[in-house]
């Protein structure tokens, strides 16, 4: 028992002596294995416990463990000290090149038209408009007749039309949704209707045979032109920034009276005049107006009781203005080099 005790004490001393000499982490690790490794000197004392008489075991065991804890602690301390002293060597071994590219997955993007549509819809949704939809293939009645485009009227030239047959066509605007909703429901109605439209126009940088519109309308008692101006100003400020100047000017749409065109100060030159705004300082952004009494009559509303406003905007145009895109065809080519930019 005494021998065990002495040997233990001797080993402990040895450790401290040798430790004092070591000043490299590498050597320290070797030393740690020598004493504390699986077959280490200190470790073996604990293993050898089973060879000492049973009655001495608890005392010696406690002692051996104390020594082990002590040695472990001093190793820990020394390693820490040495690490501070020779950091460069330590780091070189484990150096992480954090500039190497990470494991990136593919990242997709929403089409810019969807991004701007979502933005537009979001703004109106926040103002209490609900979303409605209608078919792309429409009858002459919904696309024109009910919207007060008389047959044989030059107003029909405003919207060159693809026909399926004489009475069936590809909608030229989202306004038929106004009729479809009003036929089914009673005011108050506060609706936006996004969707695809079609125009029989030659394809070039400025026009494409299909495009997206967002239609909006509000019907209630006492809706005024001031409400129309308010909601559209608020919308434009939300979309293009609060400081942007807007103007309303006279226009003509068969389904609104009075009709208006809304302009914003050119986003490029801020109204000074440039190529984008054709040196006018203003950009046409949407068409609007008070819903024409004929339209109300067509859906069985009394125009003396109800008034309302309606507006419609081209999503491609707004997207082009927002991002400075100069060719509408890019939207339908879906070139990844284009889509990646948004």
């Amino acid at each position: 028992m005494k021998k065990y005790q002495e040997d233990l004490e001797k080993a402990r001393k040895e450790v401290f002596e040798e430790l004092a000499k070591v000043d490299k982490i590498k050597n320290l690790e070797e030393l740690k294995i020598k004493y504390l490794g699986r077959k280490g000197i200190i470790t073996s004392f604990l293993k050898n416990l089973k060879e000492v008489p049973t009655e001495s075991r608890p005392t010696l065991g406690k002692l051996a463990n104390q020594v082990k804890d002590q040695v472990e602690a001093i190793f820990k301390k020394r390693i820490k000290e040495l690490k501070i002293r020779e950091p460069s060597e330590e780091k070189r071994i484990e150096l992480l090149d954090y500039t190497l590219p990470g494991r990136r997955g593919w990242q997709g993007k929403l089409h810019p038209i969807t991004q701007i549509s979502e933005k537009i819809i979001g703004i109106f949704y926040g103002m209490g408009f609900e979303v409605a939809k209608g078919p792309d293939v429409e009858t002459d009645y919904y696309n024109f007749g009910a919207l007060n485009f008389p047959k044989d009227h030059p107003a029909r030239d405003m919207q060159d039309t693809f026909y399926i047959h004489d009475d069936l066509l590809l909608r030229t605007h989202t306004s038929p949704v106004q009729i479809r909703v009003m036929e089914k429901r009673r005011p108050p109605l506060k609706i936006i209707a996004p969707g695809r439209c079609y125009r029989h126009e030659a394809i070039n940088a400025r026009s494409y045979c299909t495009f997206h519109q967002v239609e909006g309308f509000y019907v209630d008692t006492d809706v005024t032109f001031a409400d129309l101006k308010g909601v559209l100003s608020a919308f434009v400020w939300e979309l293009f920034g609060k400081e942007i100047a807007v103007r309303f000017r006279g226009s003509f749409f068969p389904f609104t009276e009075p009709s208006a065109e809304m302009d914003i100060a050119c986003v490029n030159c801020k109204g000074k005049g440039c190529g984008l705004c054709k040196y006018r300082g203003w950009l046409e952004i949407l068409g609007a107006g008070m819903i024409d009494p004929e339209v109300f009559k067509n859906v069985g509303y009394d125009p003396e009781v109800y008034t309302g406003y309606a507006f419609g905007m081209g999503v491609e145009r707004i997207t082009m203005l927002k991002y400075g895109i100069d060719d509408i065809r890019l939207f339908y080519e879906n070139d990844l080099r284009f889509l990646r930019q948004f």
Partner: protein
Amino acid sequence: MKVSYKWLKDLVDFDWSPEELATRLTDAGVEVETITPLGMGLEKVVVGEITRVQKHPQANHLFVCEVEIGSEFLQIVCGAPNVKEKVKVPVALIGARLPIGVEIRKTTLRGVDSFGMICSEKELGIGEDQKGIMILDSRLRIGLTLTEALDLEDCILNLDLTPNRADCLSIIGVARDVGALFGSSVKKPQIRFNEIDELTKDWVEVEIEDPAACPRYAARVIKDVEIKDSPFWLKRKLESVGMRSINNVVDVTNFVMMETGHPLHAFDYDLFSQKKVVVRRAESGEKFITLDEVERSLNKENLLITDGKKPVAIAGIMGGMESEVSSNTKNVLLESAYFDPRVIRRGRIFLGVSTEASQRFERGMDPNGVVNAANRACQLLEELADGKVLKGVVDNYPCPIVPAQVTLRPRRVNQILATDLKSKEMVQILKRLDMEVSENQDLRVTVPTFRPDLSREIDLIEEIARIYGYDKTETSMKASGSLVTRLSEEDRFITRIKHFLVGKGFYEVLTNNLVDPKILKRLCPEISTVNLQNPLSQEMSVLTGSLVHNLLGVISWNKKRKEEDVRIFELGKVYLTRENELPKERLHLGLALSGKREMIHWGTEETEVDLYDLKGILESLASNLGVSFHLNQEKTIPLKSDSSFQITVDGTKVGILGEVAQEILELFEIEGKVFAAELDFERLLAGIPMRKTFQPLPKFPPVNRDLAILVEEDVLSERISDKIKTVGGDLIEEITLFDVYRGKQISPGKKSLAFAIRYRAKDKTLTDQEVEGIHQKIVLELEKSFGAILRKQ
């Protein structure tokens, strides 16, 4: 419509610059698209007098001229045949940049120095004449700039008119709006001319067979006209608004049309076979040669002006070649008529033409301005063609069109516009627009017939608003409407799915859904497409019936541009025709995948995508939506026969998935493999559980066991996992296939499948023996059903 700023100034007083005028008109709904200044490039062109002309010593066709320009004499070499002494000419000085793009420099022509250029009309950009130099009025002061001398400075406003504003297809009409906006009134030209004793009605009678189509036809006759060039001022006026000068008679009719808006037609009276004008419908198939020398085949939509025997003009659209005024014309029959706008529109659409006249008639001219326009032309023909105007108008107008009477309630105006206008202010605006107003509590407004677009109270409200100024009306920033708004389930899922796929690395595309039926039919031969009657081209003549088709187009476009790794989707419609109903429009979700599986990375091996990549995306989507997809082998044409599957949810087919067939890829000139899927969105939506119910978390621990078996190649893994599930029942919580192996240790024709099975009971901790028991049962059942052999670890 082009409007000359100067011409406007002749007709109405205002002190706005062209730019300000453009803004005011645009705000009031008469949109000025562009402003083009005239007289540009003529700053260094002056009036000179040729004082001496000598033959060029070296060249037969050249002359050496001495030209006085006020301060000095210049030597100028000129080749025009009409140079002579003592005439005044336009001289472009050195440094001038003419509108045609020529810059004048000192030159030497065959050894003689030349210090400027004597110009033709064409070279100055103010006329068509290029036969010789322009000879100026001898009264002009030498040295004056040409723009001053000829009063050339002007601005042309290009109007983009809305179809309702027929009245603005005339300078007087635009002037009326300018006056209303500025607060002045139009100074209409005074019409004065002499009539000779001979009576028009002895020369011509007018018969209208279809008075509905032609409510009014007025004729005048002007005798003994002298056909010649128009004076400079008239040419300039026409050219400034974009019309070409022809001769004095034709120019007068065009001038009156531009001024009053009313299209007139001048016939050579002597080419009529009788003293008669008959207005009738054309026969179907009747042939007629118009003045542009085109033989046109007519139908009943066309209204004809005839002399009772042969047609002389297509009413309101175009005159005939034979009865045209020519240099031989002595006597002119002048037509001023009013035609039904719809008749003219139908007629010109049938003929596929649009003329200055048809544009005006189809928008609606003033039926009561007919005689005035004719008289204005008589005045000018007397003045400019020495014509003798016969007495009286032959005016066939059986049912005069009366001005509309509209009641306007001032409070309604203020209610709609949210304004606070006084009745007096409204009256003032309406009167400035030439309306008669009688004031009571409500206003009784008589709308002149030159404004066919105004027939209702609301129309007048718009007139008041646009003249008062839209920008002066209130803007209300208060919100109203219903309290509850909602997005439909469909819209919510559309957004969710789009964002999910974007997160999975897919780009959203939007394709042109007008496609080529030849290619579409190769992908889906049985589809009944929606076909356009008037496509832009054959390649875009039907609505698409397949998103896979559209996506392949996108892949092709990108691969041709070296973008090889394409992951795209579209949520779009496909269209199918139906009998007696609107076509069926189904929302589909299409996905396509091609190229590398992962982005190039230093720590990742480069591999190409395969079927399991696309299947995996869809499985993830299914798990996101809370549905489960199953695949069954089913041949669909665009897909490779051994890699073509239908996707089902709860037994309902929702779409297809697979590898695109080689022959289809070739159609799109695509190289490399493409995997594609197309799902019917509505059916998918129907499969999504809308209600979610909480499941209590398990209380007892699971036991995991692996199972590796050898089976024949043709045994589908799903059948095995289904079997495991059946045998294990409720105790099986999860089965994961974690390894598929074919190789050295395994005989050919067989594969090894390894499953990790997680057992768990709801009500107790499973013992090893219990699990072992079920596990053994599973192994036995797999041996029995599939001939599976258990692989020992």
